């Protein structure tokens, strides 16, 4: 797929496939096109040319009125968490579940939200508001919200960008657990240490081009990553 903004190519003929249950990292310097790729996957934007298929849905040709069908299949985690401050942690998670599927009752939404919070290690903080939680805890709530509807794909844009190293490692453990349950996880990050240590598939974007697709378990030459962090 290719995505252009005017005469500038944000993504240039990028071709990749993600397997179920696979955890991959998307790396590259700022402006390389990582966020553009995630936005294409979530159909926030359309490719200028090419195709984007997500779980059998053609995102590239999806009408605006059908975008919600795709979004229910893609969980999203942001660097800045994007929690609603007026809702508790459990309500934030339940809100995502109910607005995505109106057939979910209050009781079911609450129970599933508490289960999801329990799974991310926040079973006792369901009644806390976002401003009563640490950054790491807020990001865990955001992860719980992203996976509550059991999407086949989870994308995360710099999920550890605002976290200390300890919280970042906890977050990565969480993503590994999620992938182990069969959910495909794609994480855009600048964190070289995490990428090196986890030994997962690494997709490297530079100037909008996919310059390297390094399979899991192989350590390549990534010296440039250190300079971009």
């Amino acid at each position: 797929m290719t995505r252009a903004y005017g005469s500038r190519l944000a993504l240039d003929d990028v071709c990749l496939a993600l397997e179920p249950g696979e955890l991959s990292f998307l790396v590259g310097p700022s402006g390389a096109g990582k966020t553009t790729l995630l936005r294409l996957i979530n159909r926030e934007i359309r490719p200028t040319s090419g195709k984007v298929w997500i779980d059998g849905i053609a995102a590239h040709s999806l009408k605006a009125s059908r975008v919600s069908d795709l979004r229910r299949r893609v969980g999203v985690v942001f660097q800045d968490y994007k929690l609603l401050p007026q809702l508790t942690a459990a309500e934030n998670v339940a809100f995502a579940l109910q607005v995505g599927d109106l057939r979910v009752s209050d009781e079911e939404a609450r129970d599933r939200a508490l289960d999801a919070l329990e799974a991310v290690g926040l079973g006792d903080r369901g009644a806390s508001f976002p401003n009563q939680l640490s950054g790491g805890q807020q990001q865990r709530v955001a992860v719980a919200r992203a996976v509550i509807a059991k999407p086949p794909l989870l994308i995360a844009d710099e999920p550890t960008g605002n976290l200390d190293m300890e919280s970042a490692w906890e977050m990565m453990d969480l993503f590994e657990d999620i992938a182990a349950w069969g959910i495909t996880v794609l994480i855009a990050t600048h964190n070289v240490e995490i990428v090196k240590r986890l030994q997962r598939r690494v997709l490297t974007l530079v100037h909008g081009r996919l310059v390297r697709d390094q399979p899991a378990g192989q350590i390549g030459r990534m010296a440039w990553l250190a300079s971009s962090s």
Partner: protein
Amino acid sequence: MAGIVLVKGHFPRRRMAQIVGTNVMRYVFGGAGRSWLRNISSTAPALGSMTLLLLLSGLVGLAGYALTNLERVEAGQASLLYVYLRDDATFLEVNDLSSRLVKDPRVASVTYTSKADALKRAQTIPGLPQLASSSDSNPFPASLDVQMKNINEVAGVNSLVRSDIAVDPSYPTSYDQGSYQRIQNVLFGLAVAGIVFLGLLGFVAVTVTVNSIRAAIHARRDEIRIMQLVGAPRWMVRGPFVVEGAITGALSGAAAGLVTFGLVAAGIHAGSASFTQFAPGVTVVVAAAGAAMVFAAGLGLGSGSSLLSLRRHMES
């Protein structure tokens, strides 16, 4: 023999409908209500301008209705030619004139009004009873009331009868050349002015409402973004804003409708107290219907403006 255990529970489809209904009420209507209250300061200008627009629309609409009725009355009166008879005209002279008019193909009907009937009729017209009582004798002449088939034929019949022996030479008929045309011109001018005025006010009200909804979208942008990202259907993301606009429109419409009804009812009451007609055809029922239409227009204007704002300012 194996027994059968029946477990009676909720009908699933009904239960599902209840759940969906509850969620729609909470997220679409409840969310809209909370947001409307939260953004009341940015909505207030829209509320005020829309109320003013709807009030003026209601009053102008009812005035237009009254003018339309007036025009119909005037058209009817203009096609009715009063041929005033000499006080000393004989029965034969009057009968001869009447017969000729009845036979005229341009004439629909001819009715004789005696001096006594003319006096009675005058006493029902505001201002004329005083004139009638100021004289010892009856000042109103007998007449032949000629109803024309076509308003354009009045002039021809007028010229035919004014020199007749039975007709009063000093004031032969009620014919006033161009009077009907003058009324039509005035009414047309008023209609154009009213439409232009309401068009301008409508533009202002829609612009202000669009901006207030834009402010609401901005205030709730995080919530909207999250709803969009978790797969909320488009109608559910946009619905609360349409409801917000509808709330603004409904409140404006209700206020404007009530004031319109109150003003018209007061006018009718004041008119009946002084034996004058407030506005032709405008009754309490018409005023109530007008108020209901103002309310419906408010509802439509509010939700329509919201839709317009959503199309412009919200991404999918």
